[in-house]
């Protein structure tokens, strides 16, 4: 069992590495420079991949939070927690790379566009998720509260998106490509998303494993000290 898990882990790691190298090659060598925005447009590939994968991460947290509340199996909680952690790291990167790109493309660091605002709210919500787990008076409570925030926060996302969309009707996002997305661009994007998805899976599995290990060690310690 352990051996097989190791094998899968190594295979994933190899796959991730290969994909990441391919992604970097495609972003910097293969894909042609977009005409209107120039070289900076290449930020787009990682930026969008990170955004997608962080959304996936929060979806996983949502699903596993529900599973945890139904069955109360700690392993579901480890996955939900680890996934939220990776999601927060990735969203942080989205929120950093976004403005860098925006500054050159639109001449502004930030705009209260639907996507940007939703990412920011999402980030704040999952910071709250991590905080509520950290500040809960008992770990079991933290897991329950985390699950509740993981569910409630995720349901908020479409409502926030919709609201902000109506609120600010002008969309900077529509002018990403003047000529529409070309085939090489799409290919590059797909490879980038695949690379980050594998990275996400690796990090989440590792994080969940660490949490499980941490719990067993704490239990052992308590048993030994009485």
């Amino acid at each position, binding site marked *: 069992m352990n051996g097989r898990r190791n094998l899968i882990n190594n295979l994933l790691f190899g796959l991730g590495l290969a994909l990441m190298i391919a992604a970097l090659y495609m972003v910097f060598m293969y894909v042609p420079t977009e005409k209107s925005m120039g070289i900076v447009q290449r*930020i787009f590939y990682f930026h969008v991949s*990170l955004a997608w994968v962080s959304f996936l991460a929060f979806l996983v947290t949502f699903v596993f939070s529900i599973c945890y509340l139904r069955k109360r199996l700690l392993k579901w909680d480890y996955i939900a927690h680890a996934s939220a952690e990776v999601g927060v790291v990735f969203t942080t990167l989205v929120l*950093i790379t976004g403005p860098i790109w925006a*500054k050159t493309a639109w001449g502004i660091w930030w705009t209260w566009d639907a996507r940007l605002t939703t990412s920011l709210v999402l980030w704040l919500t999952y910071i709250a998720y991590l905080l509520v787990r950290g500040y809960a008076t008992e770990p079991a409570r933290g897991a329950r509260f985390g699950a509740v925030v993981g569910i409630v926060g995720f349901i908020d996302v479409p409502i926030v998106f919709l609201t902000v969309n109506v609120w600010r009707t002008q969309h900077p996002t529509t002018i990403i490509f003047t000529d529409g997305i070309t085939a090489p661009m799409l290919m590059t994007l797909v490879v980038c998303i695949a690379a980050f998805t594998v990275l996400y899976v690796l990090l989440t599995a590792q994080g969940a494993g*660490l949490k499980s290990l*941490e719990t067993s060690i704490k239990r052992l310690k308590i048993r030994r000290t009485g």
Partner: protein
Amino acid sequence: MEYLGYLFAAYSVVWAVIFGYVLYMQRKQKRLQRQIEMLQKSVASQISHDK
């Protein structure tokens, strides 16, 4: 081409943060490893003590 700096900044940040996160996990793993060793030692000493 003056924007090359921005491109460079964006990608460096991505790698720095991901690397930092992996490092953080690695340190956590090392800490847990040490704790396991401590527990093993204390178990071992107790067994020899019991004998």
